[in-house]
């Protein structure tokens, strides 16, 4: 079975320039990063803090520009297209953030939070689609009128996942989705992510400190060390 390539990074280089007194300091964060991710596959990014993981994610999401190299999402180079096209492509990416407490706007109801992706991308939606998305993450329709502070950490992470999945994206980026949760809730969230992946067949880019979790969840593991990406097998961990 042939897989479609969802994400392709080719020789990405990025360096930050720090202007100190009389002197320019250049720190290379990424020294030629290559990465291919296919539909339905799971890839883990691990590495110590400050190794360039976050920079790589920012480049993929178009929040920062690389110095050289190309980022291809669904086969299109995102540096050579207009802003409108970029937005269309980015609607194929869903993000699950690390901290469920600060990722949701405290002044919006769950209905507003879940409908925002539709409004931004100008896609028509009905209330039924929102209810369906909530039921998939085992919350019910009465929760639509509630505010984020009325939920526990695990439930908030479920809302996060529902929001990331609501446009049926081809790629999900999960940035340490369970590090702020308890052990028992962690198992629930991990099971939910794997169940959803089987259903929608999205590619998952998983960033975590928890090596055992990466080994359990992912087919490929990539170690980021001093700006260089190397693939390692699960047994080496």
């Amino acid at each position, binding site marked *: 079975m042939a897989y479609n390539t969802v994400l392709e990074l080719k020789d990405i280089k990025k360096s930050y320039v720090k202007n100190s007194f009389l002197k320019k300091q250049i720190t290379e964060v990424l020294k030629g990063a290559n990465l291919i991710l296919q539909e339905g596959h799971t890839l883990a990014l691990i590495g110590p803090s400050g190794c360039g993981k976050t920079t790589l994610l920012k480049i993929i999401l178009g929040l920062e520009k690389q110095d050289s190299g190309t980022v291809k999402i669904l086969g299109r180079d995102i540096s050579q297209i207009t802003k409108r096209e970029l937005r269309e492509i980015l609607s194929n990416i869903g993000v699950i953030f690390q901290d469920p407490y600060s990722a949701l706007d405290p002044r919006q109801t769950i209905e507003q939070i879940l409908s925002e992706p539709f409004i931004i991308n100008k896609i028509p939606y009905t209330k039924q689609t929102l209810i369906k998305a909530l039921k998939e993450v085992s919350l019910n329709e009465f929760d639509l009128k509630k505010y984020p502070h009325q939920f526990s950490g695990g439930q908030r992470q479920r809302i996060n996942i529902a929001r990331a999945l609501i446009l049926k994206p081809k790629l999900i980026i999960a940035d340490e989705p369970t590090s702020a949760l308890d*052990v*028992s809730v962690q*198992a629930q969230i991990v099971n939910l992510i794997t169940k959803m992946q089987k259903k929608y067949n999205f590619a998952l880019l998983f960033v975590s*400190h928890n090596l*055992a979790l990466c*080994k359990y969840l992912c087919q490929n593991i990539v170690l980021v060390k001093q700006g260089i990406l190397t693939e390692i097998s699960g047994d080496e961990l």
Partner: protein
Amino acid sequence: MLEVKHLTVSIRNKNGKIYPIVKNLSYKLQEGQTLAIVGESGCGKTMQAMAIMGLLPPNISVTRGQILFQGKDILKLSKKERREINGKEIALVFQDALTALNPVITILQHLLEVFKARTNLTSDEAENKIKELLQQVELPQNILSSYPHQISGGQRQRVMLALALALNPKLLIADEPTTALDEKTQEQILNLIKKLQKTYKMAVIFITHDLILAKEIADKIFVLYYGTKIEEAASKDLFSNPLHPYTYGLFKSIITRDTPKGIPLFEIYGYIKKGGRFYGCPFKDRCKKSSRVCYKFLPPLEELKPKHFCACFWAKSTQFQRGKNGI
């Protein structure tokens, strides 16, 4: 040394209603022993520690019970007498080191403050003591002139330990000292606590939600759920043979490197409830083994195996039928 008897801590909510968050908790701790308290967030493990320290927030208070420290009930002492005990006899390491340290004064000033407030040492003597302390927590001397934001998370936690140990306490309460740190630093801090415990011969209460950490450090573990103690045992017994369905579920849902791929993880159904009074067992709604009895009566804490206490009707009724590895 420390004995907590029938401690009940209650919260008063906005409507003026009072309901308990820690219920009828009793335990004993001897010199040199390590006790780990394990539980999910919001189960009251931090609040019972704050009750021992006398640092409860204004809307939360101890409504029943005694806390005996070396034979004296510290709940009945005046504020001044309590201050004498806090710090000198009982010390606390807070959860989040960055917020617990003052951002506008240096590490040296933090440590000097302790000696100035509590002892009659001159500043030269105090500085010598501080140097000794730094050696014990394995920090370099040049850290004294830096501010809390300039040092790493592990170093901050070491500074917190130095602050707690400054007056040679007999009891150290560590409230999730390693949650904000990564795996390697966690191990270092744990080893450091173990080493310091031997040199100072103090008792340690270790509060955590990580069962593996608790196993590494503690002699005795008890599991809190919704403010009630549901299981208590020596750490080896608890790991080899958990009796309560909740403890069993917690062990099962930990991901280790040997967890087989592709098989869904064991999960405990549902969420911990928020507030309010209820009848029966606190875990009944999430428990797959619950029966009608669980909805009517609160299961008492009973000794089901030698020195292994558990509060569960189901565990009691099936303890003779189960094999080695439980449920």
